[in-house]
């Protein structure tokens, strides 16, 4: 019984993460794409705060790796960024749970900004990427979408009684 519940939990988490990856590569017009929130990171941040014993830095690393493959960037860029960024979330999850939604959104803004900064620095030094301000816009849209992501994910988590 316990085993099967664990299986359900695992597949629900995996399902939401795969959905976030699909959203991350879904073709949309370029003007919108510049504002596309960092869906996979949002999903990972939620699960790390909600179920820190299920989803951890290793999970974030693997999702980052999947993003690397999907986006065709050098393997390890997003993996490193995601692993670093979720560290504070995993460390202080009890405190973050008690944040209000707007406080959480600000935190998400900072985390996505940090993740993008790490990827940019790596791209800049290894692949000579020029600075593009619009690369950092998704931090803003991610923060704006966070409350909805949080509420929807909480609904999913409560529906499956995941603790």
């Amino acid at each position, binding site marked *: 019984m316990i085993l099967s519940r664990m299986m359900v939990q695992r597949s629900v988490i995996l399902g939401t993460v795969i959905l976030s990856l699909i959203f991350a*590569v879904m073709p949309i017009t370029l003007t919108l794409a510049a504002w596309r929130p960092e869906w996979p990171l949002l999903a990972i941040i939620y699960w790390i705060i909600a179920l820190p*014993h299920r989803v951890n*830095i290793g999970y974030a690393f693997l999702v980052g*790796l999947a993003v690397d493959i999907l986006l*065709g960037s050098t393997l390890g860029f997003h993996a490193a960024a995601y*692993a670093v960024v979720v560290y504070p979330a995993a460390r202080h999850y009890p405190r973050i749970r008690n944040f209000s939604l707007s406080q959480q959104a600000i935190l998400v803004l900072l985390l996505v900004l940090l993740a993008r900064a790490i990827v940019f620095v790596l791209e800049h030094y290894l692949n000579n990427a*020029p600075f*593009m301000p619009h*690369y950092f816009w998704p931090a803003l849209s991610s923060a704006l979408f966070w409350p909805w992501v949080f509420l929807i994910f909480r609904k999913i988590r409560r529906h499956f009684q995941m603790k």
Partner: protein
Amino acid sequence: MSTPLFVRSVSLKVRLTLALSLAFLLIFLDHRLDAMQPVRLFLNSLVSPVQYLAVVPEQALDNFISQVQSRRALVNENELLKQEMLDLQGRMQRYEFLMLENERLRTLLASDSRDDRLRMVAEVIAVDSDPFSHQVVVNKGTRHGVYIGQPVIDANGVIGQVVSVGVTTARIILISDQSHAIPTRSAESEIRVIVQGVGSTEFLELMHVPHSTELQEGDLLLSSGLGGVFPEGYPVARIHSLVRDESLPFARVRATPVANLDRIRMLLLLWDAESDQQPIRPEQEETE
């Protein structure tokens, strides 16, 4: 079942250190040693379901739109397509005549005749949202004979080349990617110049153009065939600005890509008719 109070078996710092060292090892292997190419085939195939799923909504929308399109709109479109077809057929006759003539002239000059190229239509199934890598994924892979370094064009001009392949997908780097450069030749003045992507689909930059250049705004740049990747004579870009700032070592020349890089849907994969790499058209798909 109550949640245990101390859930962590391994400390977070150890996990982070492990993850980071693994990530840097990967970056080193992939970037410095380029050792991940064979693994990428496998990885690309692994994530291809995600890419196929990602286009489902768009395809459904397209289907829906074509379902609800009125009869009149369809008739109009049909009419338009027929006219276009007639126009193209007219040009095709001329092209055939010119091709024969060209071949005759080439035999007179005792130089090699040029072979036709084999083409295959591919559909874009994913576009990268990352501005640092301008790449698209198409629904053709090793099963269709796609190979790394294959040139890709669309109806207007050069799009890019294949950088990695999966079994049913291939990843194409666009000419606008910051790591891509293509040798070209001006159609007007025959000057050879390298066109470099800068990470924007709006414009490309021309490398190492001296201030005394004969290039002019509006010049059309064709692929020169010198790199051995792109066949000769396909339109790449048109020069739209030429700034001769004497304080810089070279003139700053920008060109707009001829192909619509920001809205690619269908594109053409090219095969050299004489090379070992040949397109594979799965028979069973057609008979099914």
